[in-house]
């Protein structure tokens, strides 16, 4: 089947084309032409802007309690209403962007780094490397992560916001990488046998070169998909952690925390749940559509 097909682009043309112009500038140019990419890119930038300048943008402090006006839908200077302590929802959403976006992005970065390097190592080196690394990921899947998080609290005894931030990253990244490693390995195994990789190997390209120049660019698509979908899970997982005593402690808000705190008010004050959910969903949508556009832009086969 697949192997019978002959590529209509020869290896030389592919290689020479790649060398002729910077792939990144090329990609950027194409990215700018896509309206969806522009829109979602702008949304991401906007969220980052809000996160960075939350103190200037938020109408109230995130922990200011207006106890005369609790659980209102809007009014009294609270555009999006207040929670059970009279804290302003809009302000908490803007501050919450800080925690949620930074947790999402940093954890993804750690996950990506560990997952890709171990996955590639397993697939490319094969043999014993593959066996050991994949058995480790098997074990990691069964790893009781909740218990690990509790242990982290025991060891670190976080008392300051900074130390709890750190524990969040460690706990979440540790849980996330095995999935990524498996994905990368699976992809690399399939790609390893492709003609152009064999050709590159035959022409004496180093293992590192094959990995970075041939394997990685060709598996970008599933990686981007995995990352952009995962971000929602990571942002929500942070909320679970804060219940265990690590994670960001109240009154500092995060979107995940706001969603889970709003749960008892599902019937009486559903808007408390709706606003952070919209924030979370819009970020997830933006990242996914941007990721799609990015992948299209980076795809060498789509170049004109």
């Amino acid at each position: 089947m697949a192997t019978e097909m002959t590529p209509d682009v020869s290896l030389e043309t592919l290689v020479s084309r790649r060398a002729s112009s910077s792939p990144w500038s090329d990609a950027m140019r194409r990215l700018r032409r896509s309206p969806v990419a522009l829109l979602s890119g702008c949304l991401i930038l906007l969220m980052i802007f809000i996160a960075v300048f939350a103190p200037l943008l938020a109408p109230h402090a995130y922990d200011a309690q207006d106890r005369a006006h609790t659980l209102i839908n809007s009014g009294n200077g609270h555009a999006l209403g207040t929670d059970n302590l009279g804290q302003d929802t809009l302000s908490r959403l803007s501050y919450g962007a800080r925690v949620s976006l930074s947790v999402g992005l940093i954890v993804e970065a750690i996950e990506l780094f560990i997952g890709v390097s171990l996955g590639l190592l397993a697939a490319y080196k094969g043999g014993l490397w593959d066996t050991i690394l994949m058995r480790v990921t098997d074990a990691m899947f069964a790893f009781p992560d909740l218990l690990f998080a509790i242990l982290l609290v025991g060891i670190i005894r976080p008392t300051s916001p900074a130390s709890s931030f750190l524990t969040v990253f460690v706990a979440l990244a540790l849980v996330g990488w095995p999935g990524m490693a498996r994905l990368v390995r699976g992809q690399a195994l399939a790609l390893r046998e492709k003609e152009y990789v064999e050709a590159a190997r035959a022409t004496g390209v180093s293992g590192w070169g094959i990995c970075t120049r041939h394997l990685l660019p060709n598996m970008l698509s599933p990686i981007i998909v995995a990352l952009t979908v995962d971000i929602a899970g990571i942002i929500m997982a942070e909320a679970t952690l804060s219940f265990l005593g690590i994670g960001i402690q109240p009154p500092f808000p995060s979107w995940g925390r706001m969603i889970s705190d709003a749960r008892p008010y599902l019937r009486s004050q559903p808007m408390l749940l709706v606003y952070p959910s919209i924030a979370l969903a819009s970020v997830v949508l933006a990242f996914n559509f941007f990721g799609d556009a990015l992948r299209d832009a980076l795809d060498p086969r789509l170049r004109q």
Partner: protein
Amino acid sequence: MRRAVFCLFMLCIAVPGCVRRHDTATRMDVLRYPIGAEPSSLDPVTITDPATIELLRNIYEGLVRFDENNQVAPSLAEKWDISPDGKTYTFHLRPGVKFHNDRELAASDVKWSFERSLWPDTKSPVAANYLAGIVGVEDVASGKRRDLAGVSIPDLHTVVIRLKAPRGYFLGELAYNTGWIYCREAIEKTGGRIEQESSIGTGPFKLAGYQHGSKVILDAFAEYWGGRPKLARIERPIVIDPQTAHVKFENGEVDLCDVSLNDYLNDEKSPVLKPQLRLIPQPAVSYLAMGEAEGQPFRDKRIRLAFAQAIDRDAIQATAYRGISPRADGLLPPGLPGYDTGFPKISYDPAAAKRLFTEAGYPEGKGFPSIVLVYTQKAPELGAAAQIIRDNLKQNLGLSVDLQERESATFLSDARAKKLPFHLNVWYADYLDPQNFLPTLLRTGAAVNRVSYSNLRFDALCDQADREHDPSKRIALYQQADRLAMSEAALLPLAYPKAAMLIKPYVKGLSMNLMSLLPHRKTSIGH
């Protein structure tokens, strides 16, 4: 019998068929009431959680019980005499009481049950504490002897219990689940462990089925000494999520359900649900603990009083407890013997708090060590209370307090090790006696005294009350002790938490006391 056949028939055609939504025909005398957690055990002496205790209270009984008026009342013991020195209790068992296996209850069952509760291999975490007054308990609990010296059985229907010292609250302790009586031969048949088939007591209902994670079924015990219960069956589906329980109630899938305070306020707006709502007082008090151990800032009484004046407990009552649970000033909750309506208040007074704090050496909060307020998610109101306390201390004393929410086991282990100098907690009484609040929480060296409070005058008052057996004198002494400790802000009581319930109008004859719903001896489903 006819009804049973009919029920069975209906059940058969109902099972594979459609959704049984408003199907009341099969369950005219079945009470369906969700239980909020998997029962922690079927063995009454190993459980400490209110939900399981309430469930098993329908199966087992003790010598005495607490009645609807929160008073000690006869149960398996018809009457009892107390010797003049208060150290010997003679219980006269009710004649004709039968176990669920039809065997008649004898005095030897009482002795054996107490002994089994104490044996180390029964692994009861609390029995040795609640039977501690009896002569010889240590020997049995430590495994030195199998036989409890302080309990003797002169005849088939008499049990004599000798105490080490007079203990005014002894009957209260006996009403706790470590004093329940169970059936020896059944338990010995299952290797000393209480399992489904050995869950045999004398209560109005017997265990008919237990599907783990799914439901517990209790059937009426026809030969119950107090008369056959009106219900034929109690079904307790295990519903962990409170929102699910609420939907089940609205859907007519259950007859009773617990309601959170938030849902209570929301349901009050519904004309259908409003008349079905009921607020339930609890034998509980929530408090802020400020550890007074050597080296802690709170050792200085002025600091504790400054905190007490800087914290707006009315705001906590209105906001965290949604205006439902009353504000607390003393430790004893309403309904409990000894509740004091005129308890002196420490009022919210930021200016006075600031003065006191300056006097204690921390003007504007300068130099005060950084403190972390720890609490668990178990009681959702505590989280809100913690945030209000943080806000109050920041505004009024210029302190910055970090909040730490901890998962239960970590919290409990830290609390036990007295590693939580500043925390929020709720204390639930195990029996309705002031003794279970005052000396238990604050006597010098008491196991649950997590703030290391020590005041010799307080200790003396409590000791005197513990030994007193004139109830009114006892209570007056405890009240005095309560006022003394609170005037020094030994703990800062916040509120007396209330629970809420939804009850279908056709459920009749429910009885409850401060502890929980009582056994469903008189409950019926009306039409």
